[in-house]
């Protein structure tokens, strides 16, 4: 039942995406964004794209989030939207 796992994870991905762009705390956005990337990576692993999933796990959920936190550390954490 690949498609069932796929469907469930996809729904989570969309929740994470919406949450990431609507949270008012940018650090929260960073973490949700990491979660989003990690879900995406799971999804790709389910679809058999192991290399892409590996890259996304190390880049999207790893380094990108670190860059994000670094940038938030150097700018402001609060936002109006």
């Amino acid at each position, binding site marked *: 039942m*690949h*498609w069932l796992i*796929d*469907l469930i994870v*996809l729904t989570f*991905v*969309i929740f994470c*995406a*919406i949450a*990431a*762009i609507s949270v008012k705390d*940018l650090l929260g*956005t960073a973490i949700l*964004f990491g979660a*989003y*990337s990690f879900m*995406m990576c799971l*999804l*790709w692993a389910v*679809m*058999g*794209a*192991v*290399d*892409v999933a590996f*890259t*996304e796990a190390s*880049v*999207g959920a790893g*380094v*990108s989030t670190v*860059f*994000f936190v*670094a*940038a*938030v550390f*150097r*700018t*402001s954490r609060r*936002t*109006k*939207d």
Partner: protein
Amino acid sequence: MTDLLTLIVAKYNYWLYVILMMIGLYAMIAKNNLIKKLVGMNIFQTAIILFYVSIGYKRDATIPIIQNAHGGNDAHAAVIHAADYINPLPHVLMLTAIVVSVATFGVAMALAVRVYQRYQTLEEDELRMRLVDIGPEK
């Protein structure tokens, strides 16, 4: 009913990628905070990657690493059926796309830090006001 189910199974991946992409695009156009826009940009790009990976998926096939091929020269002794392995090409393309997107993301973050250094804000409406304050451009 089963028709509907097969249709959903066949297409929902593509529909959801469109939704995801539109979330990203909306954030890029409508959000006020530059960092939020960057998040939107990344969601937009990952949605495209999702689309490509969905193209590559093949039912009843395994990951694109040939089994029993470690044996050196007698590797082609075992017959390889194309139907057993997932299409590797979209994965390759998407590795490249991920790298490009992380490079763009890094540069964009650096720019955001620069903008903040200069104007002390990342909200677009406030930035517009600051730009009016520093007068006409050179």
